[in-house]
């Protein structure tokens, strides 16, 4: 129920009303790429990048100018032939791991991947124990 409050927080900080008079200098913030395959790749990537000025919104879901700038960057880089993975690591280099919604296995994130594996083992063990006894 505070998602709107968060979104509002994001808007309030990101959008001074005066900024509306001019278009943002990033033409590809609100323009799609001509090639549908490239646009689809860009879209898929944008949905997994965090809008840094917002709370829990991807740059594909935000009106914040910074999200617009990042969409522009993603689109022109995709158009220039960079792969989504390259663009993601470029952005991570610039803004840190925080910008990517897709955590990679690293020293700080390994529990995110180890615990699900553990869960599979635990779930399997619970089920085995329950149903073996009587067999």
């Amino acid at each position, binding site marked *: *129920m*505070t*998602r*709107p*409050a*968060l*979104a*509002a*927080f994001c*808007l*309030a900080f990101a*959008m001074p*009303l005066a900024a*509306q008079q*001019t*278009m943002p200098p990033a033409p590809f913030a*609100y*323009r*799609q790429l001509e090639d549908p395959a490239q646009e689809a790749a860009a*879209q898929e990537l944008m*949905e*997994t990048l*965090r809008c840094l000025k917002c*709370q*829990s*919104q*991807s740059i*594909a*879901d*935000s*009106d914040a100018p910074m999200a617009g700038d990042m969409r522009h960057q993603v689109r022109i880089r995709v158009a220039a032939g960079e792969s989504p993975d390259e663009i993601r690591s470029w952005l991570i280099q610039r803004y*840190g*791991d*925080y*910008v*990517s*919604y*897709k*955590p990679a296995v690293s020293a*700080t*994130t390994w*529990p*995110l991947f180890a*615990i*699900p594996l553990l*869960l*599979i083992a635990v*779930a399997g063990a*619970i*089920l085995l124990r*329950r*149903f073996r006894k*009587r067999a």
Partner: protein
Amino acid sequence: MIAELGLAALWLAAALAALQMIAGFLALRAGNASELAALIRPAAIVQGVLVTFSFAMLVWLFAITDLSVKLVASNSHSLKPLVFKLSGTWGNHEGSMLLWVMVMGLAGALIALVERRLPERTMNATLAAQGVVSLGFYAFLLLSSNPFERLPVPAAEGMGLNPLLQDIGLAFHPPTLYLGYVGLSVAFSFAVGALLTRQVTPDFARAMRPWVLAAWIMLTIGITAGSYWAYYELGWGGWWFWDPVENASLMPWLAATALLHSASVLASRDALRTWTIMLGVVAFSMSMVGTFLVRSGILTSVHAFAVDPERGTFILVLLGIFIGGALLLFALRANTISEGERFALASREGALVFNNVMLSAILAIVLLGTLYPLLTEAFDVRVSVGPPYFNPVGAIFAIPMFAVMAVGPLLRWREDRIDRIGKEVALTAALVVAALVLTSLLTEIGLLPLLGLAFGIGLAVASWLPLRGRNLARTPLATWGMVVAHFGIAVALIGMASESAFTEERLAAIEQGDTATVGLWTVVLEGVEPVAGPNWTAVQARLSAHYGDGEARELTPQSRNFWAPPQQTTESALATRWNGQLYAVVGDRSPDGRWQLRLWWKPFVTLIWYGGLLIALGGLLALIGRVLTDLRHRRLAARIAERRADREALA
């Protein structure tokens, strides 16, 4: 005066909660003979009345915009429409916590009033547990979040309510969710009461079940409504973000779903005793974790939380006491409660256990993904966990669950053979495989949407199979409820898969009179004009949209500017067809005079929320069925008692 009345009622209610707790525990120690036991039910009822009165006073203060009250001054505005003044009561921290304790008080009053199935000792323990939980939240409200605080000097004008919250959908979203959260507190109290008196019986499950069902229905509606709200209000067509706030409502739902099924097994088969108790504790714990996440401010920033920790720490301590206490009690008592009846893997209980384990695993994943970033942030390492994590990892457990869900309801209790239902299994499997093959041949589609679509289609058919060979007029309402709810899951799943696989997007900058196309839609920008509302002004685009050769429909998306507080929002416009929705948003104007339009064609997106509503409807059918059966039993028991009395009188 009104504020003081409300505050006094709140203190009195807190005192009664304390009485309910103390009398309950003393009566429990003394056994049934204690006279104190007679106090417990009335205390719970009066407490419910008082806290409701207190909440009504706060609503009144908001209705008349009494600016001498701090909460009203900082969250309301005299120019707001009345309905948003009223909904503003719970659109803030203090008010929503008062709503929370009011719902809890009402729930406590209701069980005190109507629940007579359980042994009186268990009821006393249950109400005592309810007293403990309520008292904790009263303390939180009165000591750190007093909603009735006055300002030394009344404010000249209120600060206003966040414009995003000034929406009719959102006005009723928090109360529904809270009803769900707090309804689970009753399940928690029942579980603690049953543990204290070691009375984990089918009767206990039957007494608890309607509460779990009701809470679960409310959570389902709350989540569905919240998702639709995010979809049309945020202006980008997203309907689920794996945002911590959303996860906070999803986690109790997952736990309640598991609890519901396990309570059903306990009620009809006297099996899964400890498992049901455990889930009862976990479900409400998830509600409290959700409240902590949303209310402590920890989501805005872990560091902000550490700087001003008063409220957050209070909830965290409460959380620790309640969850820790309940788990400790569970650990001490669990070994004195036997597991109950046995059953084979290929049985309905077996399928339910499998799916309960899967639901619990999904719950653990959501909890992990939600808390882990907060944990690392405390050590100054910031990571983001989003859809690319939750979707595939959740699917590992969700896909087997859907498969078992399709066949489970067809199995018999206790022991069965899969080959008895061979035909049904083959039909479902054939449907899933056919959908897999056809969809992957015909379109380019990601793995997850593909699986979602295939299992959705298989499940949509399989969910109706339990009705085969039954006399439909004599099928119990609860069975209908199950069928409808399972069908709802399938419908929602198809909607989600279709939305993520087939959505088409068009970002266009066009002049008046120009057209843009998306999917089979053609959209003409007829004009752009200014409009004004009670507390906003807006730029409104007039679009005429037609699907294929169909009739033109007028759409009017707006870009609104609110002035208290100053903020811009987008009001999307939707054109709904049976096979999907056109979603239109108007953006800024570029220097050359063209208008930014964002258009999406989302095939079958509406199925997501229709599915949600079907799930809730299924729950409602089951609830009505259970309550009617219970009433019938009560009447029957009363008649038998009457006859026996007659016979004795004759003798």
